[in-house]
């Protein structure tokens, strides 16, 4: 499966870098290899681990159709939890990564993801390259 980097993903990486949410070593050794697993989705066994991969739900507990979250626990010097929403259509489109802070913030983040999913379906987004 092709992995598309949307502008939302790029922008969120820039912001996370600004906040030193994760180290370069974590990016190259953990985060990037995990994201590359999408190339072999769903056969990679890590996709069966709910601590790593789960369907995205909105604040009311409704599933966001074709929306998933990739999750990392204990990354960065502050040992934060990072989330990467992914739109799983004919391609895997990386959306806005974020540091999970609390339930309220996560609800807002998933509302944003819902908007981005809708925009992707409408073909109204910016592609910033493909991960290979």
């Amino acid at each position, binding site marked *: 499966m092709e992995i598309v980097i949307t502008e939302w993903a790029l922008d969120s990486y820039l912001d996370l870098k600004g906040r030193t949410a994760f180290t370069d070593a974590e990016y190259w050794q953990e985060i990037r290899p995990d994201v590359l697993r999408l190339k072999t989705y769903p056969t990679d066994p890590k996709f069966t681990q709910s601590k790593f991969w789960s369907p995205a739900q909105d604040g009311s507990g409704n599933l966001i159709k074709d929306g998933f979250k990739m999750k990392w626990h204990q990354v960065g010097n502050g040992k934060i939890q990072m989330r990467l929403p992914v739109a799983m259509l004919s391609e895997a489109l990386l959306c806005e990564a974020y540091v999970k802070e609390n339930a309220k913030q996560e609800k807002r983040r998933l509302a944003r993801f819902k908007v981005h999913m809708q925009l992707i379906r409408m073909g109204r*987004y910016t592609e910033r390259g493909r991960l290979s």
Partner: protein
Amino acid sequence: MRVQALAPNLQVELFEIGAQMKQARLPEEFIVNAVRTAIEFEGVYDLVKMWADETEESDRDEIVADIQDMIDDCSQQDKLEGAYVKFNDLDTIKKDIRAFKDGLLQIVAQHGGLKKLSELTKIPQPSLSRFFNSSAMPRRSTLMKIAKALKLDAIKIATEWSR
């Protein structure tokens, strides 16, 4: 995803929340755009509802900034392709963006600060705070509003990394 128009009772609810936003002194342009976008985009509807249900001022501010971000995202009408950026270049880009925003913030401070800028641009103050605090790429539309409000020439808002 929304497959049909928002039910009339939910649209009325949005207008009522819009009236609450006016009471909270949010810019009218923001309120109109929030309600319009929420009618079309379920995620924005969720955010507008969250704002109405929220009691903490700081959380309300974050929601306002989220809604403004989504209004801006939803204004894009087509699929676009931007240049690929390597991960190893992100640090340099981040530093360039920070230097640009810090410089612009100094100019804003000379013109009365963020509150004044919010009044002039009609962009909610929480959105402007997020704009200046984050290392995300600035939107050209936001830069243009700032330039117009502060009567800045093009060179002051020129950055390689706007989107």
